[in-house]
């Protein structure tokens, strides 16, 4: 049974020579929810961009990323993008159409669905994110929480098997965060979440990977890793409050 | 310079509309073929950027403020065909969203600000740039191109108004030209300042419009901008015969025009330029423009010295291909 996601010695350096990823290898099983944590500059966002072939810009056979067993290559990249849904850090980067409907419909339309299928996909995705009725709204009139959810709807409308999210709770107020986490919890797809929000990681992700300076420095059960104060301090993180006090369950 | 509806007659609106369709169509075809889809979001953002940049008030005298047009700036940063598309988007959005610029006048407004402006700016920029190849040269070329473009676009706008019978040619051309020779100074200065600001953080972004060194025997087609400009000049000739003779009337009154000195030396310095049918006021506008361009050139050199303290004479032209 193929892992949903498999990275084998993935390396990446930016045009200016700076190394962002120094040989990352990891596997994520189907249905897992993995938290990806680490200090700023550790390569979290860069790693996510490798999951649907946005990076590297040219495939030179150096790194191997397999989605459901299939290697990402120039030929495979189109179908891979259908399977891996990427949620970017800044919703304004991802909400590029004049209305909510058009934006959520973008993915399905690009992937070749018929008009009826597109409309159905949009309806379902908006319902799943609690945004039914938002079809004709303009993105610039939405709150940041609503924008985030529209982005998520846009990704869900493509029916991905894997969801890769980059800082999904940043800039959200507690209510917005709660709403988003409820939605994420309800989704059965494989999830990998890059974030600074360690409280969310504890609540959603059974497994956590710690990234620092382009390398995997720890990979294991969330509570164990995030509860390890030395590990957290060493990599510029802090033990989340939720783990600070022992709650007998 | 956005012309509202009601100012242009049918023939002017239709002919400028046809020119715009051709120019924009060509730009779309060129970009569609040779540009990766990666650049398209950049066009959209660049158009939004121009729109916002045009909104910014640059204080001039008490109460008045100047604004950037941005056509030359975009041409320098993105290249001519991209600039045509970007500026066309700006003009269209301003009309359809703001009512700034009429719908039937869209053809003329696109022609003026999105076809003539970028193409002429590109031509002048590249010509000056091919001579002045360092960082300062880039600023100077952009500045001169910006000034000239503003003046020419103003004159073209004036000609459209005159051709429509809205305003008399002899008034509107000198008025528009004169006002915009002053406004052009602002455009030139702002263009230089913005480019030098970009150079400080992302100098790589200044290589969007590369210049090929012209070699002797080079059979390349001359810049469309220059062809366009010459075409416009030719158009002005029959129109200009309507010009009353500002200078010539003075000369006539004073009895100069009849005279040629016995020894063949012409009395009026402009006598040599007089071609049958073209009066000297027309010529004096052109001369003023040329003098103005030279003044701007000199001022730009001074300003470039301030903005780029140490000139880097990197001869980047040897390796660049357009």
């Amino acid at each position, binding site marked *: 049974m193929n892992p949903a996601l498999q990275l084998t010695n993935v390396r990446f350096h930016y045009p200016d020579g700076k190394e962002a990823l120094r040989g990352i290898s990891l596997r994520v099983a189907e249905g897992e929810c993995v938290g990806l944590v680490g200090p700023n500059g550790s390569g979290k966002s860069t790693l996510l*961009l490798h999951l*649907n072939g*946005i990076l590297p810009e040219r495939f030179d056979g150096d790194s191997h990323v397999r989605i459901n067993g299939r290697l990402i290559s120039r030929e495979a990249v189109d179908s891979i*993008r*259908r399977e891996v849904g990427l949620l970017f850090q*800044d919703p304004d*980067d*991802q909400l*590029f*159409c*004049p209305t909510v409907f*058009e934006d959520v419909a*973008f*993915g399905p339309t*690009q*992937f070749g669905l018929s008009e009826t299928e597109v409309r159905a996909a949009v309806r379902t995705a908006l319902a799943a994110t609690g945004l039914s009725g938002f079809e*004709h709204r*303009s993105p*610039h009139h939405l709150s940041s929480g609503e924008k985030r959810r529209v982005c998520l709807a846009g*990704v869900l409308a*493509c029916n991905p098997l894997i969801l890769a999210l980059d800082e999904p709770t940043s800039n959200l107020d507690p209510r917005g965060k709660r709403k988003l986490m409820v939605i994420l919890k309800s989704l059965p797809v494989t999830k990998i979440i890059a974030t600074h929000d360690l409280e969310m990681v504890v609540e959603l992700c059974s497994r956590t990977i710690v990234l620092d300076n382009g390398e995997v420095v720890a990979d294991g059960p969330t509570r164990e890793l995030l509860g390890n104060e030395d590990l957290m301090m060493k990599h510029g993180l802090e033990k989340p409050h939720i783990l600070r006090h022992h709650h007998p369950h | 310079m956005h012309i*509202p*509806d*009601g100012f242009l007659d*049918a023939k002017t609106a239709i002919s400028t509309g046809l020119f715009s369709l051709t120019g*924009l*169509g060509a730009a779309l075809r060129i970009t569609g073929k040779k540009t990766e889809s990666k650049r*398209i*979001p*950049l*066009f*959209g*953002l660049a*158009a*939004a*950027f121009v*729109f*916002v*940049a045009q909104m*910014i008030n*640059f*204080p001039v005298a008490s109460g008045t403020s100047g604004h950037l047009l941005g056509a030359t700036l975009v041409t320098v940063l993105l290249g001519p065909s991209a600039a045509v*598309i970007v500026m*066309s*988007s700006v003009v269209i959005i301003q009309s359809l*969203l*703001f*009512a700034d610029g009429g719908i*039937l006048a869209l053809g003329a407004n696109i022609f003026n600000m999105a076809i003539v402006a970028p193409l002429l700016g590109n031509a002048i920029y590249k010509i000056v740039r091919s001579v002045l190849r360092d960082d300062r040269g880039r600023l100077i070329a952009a500045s001169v191109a910006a000034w000239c473009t503003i003046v020419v676009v103003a004159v073209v706008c004036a000609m459209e108004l005159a051709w429509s019978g*809205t*305003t*008399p040619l002899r*008034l509107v051309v000198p008025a528009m030209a004169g006002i915009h020779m002053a406004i052009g100074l602002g455009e030139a200065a*702002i263009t230089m*300042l*913005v480019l030098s*600001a*970009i150079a*400080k*953080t992302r100098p790589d972004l200044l290589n969007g419009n590369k210049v090929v060194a012209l070699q002797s025997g080079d059979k390349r087609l001359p810049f469309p901008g220059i062809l366009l400009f010459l075409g416009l000049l030719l158009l002005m000739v029959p129109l200009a015969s309507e010009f009353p003779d500002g200078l010539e009337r003075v000369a006539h009154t004073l009895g100069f025009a009849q005279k040629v000195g016995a020894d063949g030396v012409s009395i009026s310095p402009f006598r040599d330029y007089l071609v049958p049918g073209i009066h000297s006021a027309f010529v004096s506008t052109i001369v003023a423009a040329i003098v103005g361009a030279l003044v701007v050139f000199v001022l730009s050199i001074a300003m470039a010295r301030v903005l780029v303290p140490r000139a880097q004479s990197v001869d980047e032209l040897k390796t660049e291909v357009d």
Partner: protein
Amino acid sequence: MRHDFLDRYSRLDSPVHRLSTVTKCCVALALIGFSVAFKVEVWWIFLAIGLVLTATVIASRIPVKFILTRLLMLEPFVLGIAAMALLQAGGFAIFLNIIVKSTLCLVTLIVLTNTTPFSDILSLLRKAGIPSLLITVLALTYRYLFVLIDEAERISRARKSRTFVPKRARSWMSLSSLIGQLFVRSTERAERIYAAMASRGWK
């Protein structure tokens, strides 16, 4: 600077707003076309157009003050050219023509753009055969107008908190620097937008 002045009324509910986009555009073009085609001497056409417009403005529930403000902002060019028009043979007739026609056309356009969401106009243009490259660029321009205005405000506020009231020359440098920074951020955002578009299948 609030930016919904660009788009404040296009989604109100009124009999005019509810008309289809095609209808609104055709009526607007007809009104503009008639205004431009006839001379002011044929005064009854202009009276008719004026009445139609007044009725439309009232029905559209757009505040008259808003329309007048927009009109005032666009008048200077009209008045300048009109003044020049006076200085020729038959100038007064031309002057009158300009004032009446351009005002009627401006009001028509203002009402049209404020009763029709821009995305609807874009769909109409797409169906009318405008090349998709241009439609995409127009859509992105419209969408990111507001984002860039916000971005410019942020840059400007960051500066203001660090400088005193600048002299005129300094303010030109400061404003140009703002514009420069805005361009750089726009370029970087465009790259991210491309990545987002490509991630959802765009080629």
